């Protein structure tokens, strides 16, 4: 497969930006990750996520329905881990409780919707965000719209195969992996003079 020269970087990219997968960006295999469209070892991406979270002026976590709702033990455990990670990173949390086109509008201060996620990014001046627990299809919609219309740096912690449309994506992320990431962030924070 040809290596893509397309880079998945903060926008605003264009009126209608392409899906990264259609530009040749391929998803990572197990143990790998994507940074801005390039396949890298997972550790490198973890390091980069840590750096991005620490340097961010206004980082936000966007947990999706797969962890917001207590539908099974794994979801509850992952939700707990994600909350700890957000706290460790000093990030705020805005939920994506569902995917409907909400009528008449969402309140961008307290929620995010995959159909127009840019509203929430703009309203809260979010410069770095983390998607976690969102069904892959909807995460990809949102990530692409964000890249198209905002300059937010997007990170996706995916329980499945990852997201090309995020600037950094990790794959196969469940509660244990989130906890490990939290440890890394905590360590890095501790080493950074405030």
């Amino acid at each position, binding site marked *: 497969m040809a290596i893509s020269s397309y880079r998945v970087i903060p926008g605003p990219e264009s009126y209608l930006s392409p899906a990264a997968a259609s530009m040749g960006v391929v998803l990572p295999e197990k143990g790998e990750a994507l940074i801005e469209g390039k396949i890298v070892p997972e550790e490198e991406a973890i390091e980069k996520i840590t750096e991005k979270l620490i340097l961010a002026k206004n980082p936000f976590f966007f947990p999706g*329905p797969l962890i917001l*709702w207590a539908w099974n033990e794994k*979801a509850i455990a992952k939700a707990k881990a994600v909350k700890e990670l957000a706290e460790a990173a000093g990030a705020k949390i805005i939920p994506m409780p569902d995917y409907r*086109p909400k009528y008449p509008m969402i309140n961008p201060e307290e929620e995010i919707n995959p159909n127009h996620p840019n509203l929430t990014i703009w309203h809260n001046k979010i410069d770095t965000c983390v998607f976690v627990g969102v069904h892959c299809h909807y995460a990809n919609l949102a990530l692409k*719209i964000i890249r198209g219309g905002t300059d937010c740096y997007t990170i996706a912690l995916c329980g499945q195969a990852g997201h090309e449309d995020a600037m950094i994506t990790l794959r196969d992320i469940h509660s244990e992996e989130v906890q490990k990431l939290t440890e890394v962030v905590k360590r890095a924070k501790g080493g950074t003079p405030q």
Partner: protein
Amino acid sequence: MMERKVVDPEYMFKRAPREKKFLIGNEAVAEAVKRANVDIAIAYPITPQSEATHIVGDIYAEGYIKDYYRGEDEFNVMSAIAGARMGGARTFTATSGPGTLRAFEMFPLWAGARLPVVCAFMCRGVNSPLTIQPDNIEIGWLMDTGMLIFHAENPQEFFDMTLQAYIVAEQPDVHIPIGVCVDGFFVTHTREIVEVTPEDEMLPPYDPSTSPVPIMDMEVPPIRQMRDPFVMKSNYISYNTHASWQQEVRAAGERAKKHIARYVGKFIEVTNPDAEILLIASGTAAAQARVAMEQAREKGMDVGLAKIRVIRPFPEDEVRELAENPRIIIVPEHNIVGWLAREIKSRIDNSGKVRGHPRVFGGMTMPPEFIMEEIVNGRAR
């Protein structure tokens, strides 16, 4: 019903022992369905698909499939298949020519709703005057529905690709429908040697929890969930959502490439890639082209063959590379519109060298001699 065990897909496709049988294509696809661990099969009869869905019915009666019925027409069969898929079941269905067209509104919906449906298309003519005979014009229309398209040359590939289609379609990062197409009669009713995997081994079941969109069973959040909300008419940036949604379906097709390479194998099988004249074909046209190539080479002519097995996602890079060397590219097809020639021409820079002939349709056979004429004419040019 015999005891069966779940096996690893890669083992089944590549390493499982094979038993030689002498089967028609319709029997071969039913053998695949038996091994595919299908939950529900629904179909409507149409020539030349019928025998396949009869046997699938027998498999159901024996207990290998949990539910099966004859639907009221193809549109509603494909709708019921969508419903079953949304409910988290693994499904099988099949149709042909006019049935494909009657059902057509559902195919972009399957793709848009991210349903990993596997549907066999036993292609047949669709025009007036009526014909029930082979003609694969419907693939030309299916190509732009967002679903993935495999084109099997013979009953063996029909068997293999049907099984492989389930595993590719159900990958969480793919999760879009796959049409496994064959030319009616030339494959469905043609008896050939087919090597099948053991009857007591089946694919792992579908795991609905990996779906990239929520399964509609009230067991998966969000509880407030509509499949699939057509985006509200006047909801600010809703057009961008719709556009992004369509891009995501196409992106899923791109992601399928890696899984196809792993489970299905080569997108294109090439013999003599450096030849002066390259035949590019799919389905049974590739079988006829192979015979023509051999005849031509016996006569000292420099002819090669590229058989395209995967029509969607189209192997663009490979085709561009293949198109560089030959002086002439001949694309024989079993339809009047020449969708494959059109596709190849639109993907390469030097499309002038592509000859979209011979085309045979309406049930007529394409004798290798007919392709041979084109080769001889091409050399004279």
